[in-house]
């Protein structure tokens, strides 16, 4: 467990398991993500994709195995030469490197768009008020919402809300970001604008991305690698071309068959 520092990975799941009571939803996952790599997680509902992302964001604790982020264990810390369950302080330090965009946006309804994005840089990164504002404005411009900074989230469309949420996560400058089914709660006509924004970020950024998605075309366009999971295990993984054009396992073939 001590030889952790592998610079070629930003995220490394090793034999990660997760159970809720008797129900095991993640049954031993090994998955590495390289710095800047864009990995799409596809698979049927209930295959554990979202849980995988939530464990990386420290929203759910694995019941087995380890996750390393940037060469350090996420859920464990060393105390007196032994690895023990990580305390809040360790998790807080680790979270600096991780960001997440949620299916249901989870914008702060009591803050306007600018404050939604500028609040964390100010409070968490302790930036000066003006600098936080400038960064937030730049980020909102990047997602095409420079004209909405004074508006409250309730006055935005779903697509606009999700773009604010993306700006809010991006402004913290994480090394890896989880996109958890970010278009699943959107009306079909609003999906495109959000995916365009993500594609844009993927093209210019050196940030690693974990894209949990049901949008196969999007996964094919953006991802460097596609991971297909089912029933809590990884069934098949490879470059998008391989996965979509030459699926090997029966599970993946029948899964993709539903999208044609």
């Amino acid at each position, binding site marked *: 467990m001590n030889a952790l520092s592998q610079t070629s990975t930003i995220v490394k799941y090793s034999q990660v398991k997760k159970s809720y009571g008797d129900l095991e939803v993640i049954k031993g996952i090994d998955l590495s993500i390289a710095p800047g790599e864009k990995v799409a997680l596809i698979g049927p509902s209930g295959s554990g994709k979202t849980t995988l992302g939530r464990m990386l*964001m*420290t*929203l759910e604790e694995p019941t087995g195995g380890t996750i390393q982020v940037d060469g350090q264990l996420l859920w464990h810390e060393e105390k007196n030469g032994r690895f023990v369950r990580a305390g*809040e302080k360790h998790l*807080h330090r680790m*979270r*600096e490197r*991780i*960001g*997440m965009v*949620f299916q*249901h946006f*989870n*914008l*702060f*309804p*009591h*803050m*306007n768009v600018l404050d939604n994005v500028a*609040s*964390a840089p100010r*409070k*968490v990164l302790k930036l000066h008020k003006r600098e936080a504002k400038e960064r937030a404005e730049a980020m909102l411009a990047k997602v095409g919402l420079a004209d909405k900074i004074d508006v*409250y*989230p*309730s006055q935005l469309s779903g697509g606009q809300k999700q773009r604010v949420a993306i700006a*809010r*996560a991006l402004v*913290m400058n994480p090394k890896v970001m989880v996109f958890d089914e970010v278009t699943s709660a959107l009306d079909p006509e609003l999906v495109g604008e959000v995916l365009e924004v993500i594609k844009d970020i993927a093209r210019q950024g050196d940030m690693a991305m974990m894209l949990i998605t049901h949008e196969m075309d999007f996964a094919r366009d953006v991802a460097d690698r596609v991971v297909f999971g089912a029933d809590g295990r990884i069934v098949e993984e490879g470059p998008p071309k391989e996965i979509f054009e030459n699926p090997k396992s029966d599970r993946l073939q029948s899964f993709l068959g539903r999208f044609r």
Partner: protein
Amino acid sequence: MWDWDYAWSILPELAASFGTAFSAMAWGFAMACMGGLILVAAGRSRLAVLRLPARGLVQFIRNTPLLVQLFFLYYSLPMAIGIAPSAFVTGVVGLGLHYSTYMSEVYRAGIEGVPKGQWEAAKALNYNGRQTWFTIILPQALPPMIPVMGNYLIVIFKDTPILSAITLVETLLTAKNLTSVSFRFFEPYTLVGVLFLIICVIFSFLLRRIEVRFNRHHLGSKQGASRSFGRRKHERTQPNVDNREVFPG
């Protein structure tokens, strides 16, 4: 039956007696707000030594009558501990303790009314515990609490006559003392009722203005949901208000 001259003559004394009722209400409410905060914090604690006594106390206080609690605090407790606070102090403590258990419930519901996703977003942005509470959770939990807390303020105000049972000379006991001099019962008690009615109506009006002001900004869709929670809560506490209209003493 009704003597206007007598009614007018006792009105100033009755009106003045509301000073005691108001300060009992204010102190009792302040104590209930603080006590409720302590109870909800202890009740949500991970430590069983805090959580279980807090929940036990809430159950105990809620399931015994206020009047019995006041009698215990005023007549029994001083015998056990050897100090006898004044009727006013005892009454304030009794009201405060009693309503702190209800207030803790208001806080709990308000906090739980904030969607889980807000906690998760705060965590994803790496807010620490204190920042999460003060920047994200409380600003959303408080506005829907305001009308419910205001409601309890009125309830506490209407409970102040109960303190006459432990010899606090507030409005009702003032009226009773008047009747024992004049042997006229109709005017004093009617006036007390009418005065309470007028004051409570004014209170309600002011509260609604505060509520509107608090909710004017940031009415998100989630906020709307918690506002309907506020209204539900209001309705639920209403029967409580009515039950207490009859003074048993």
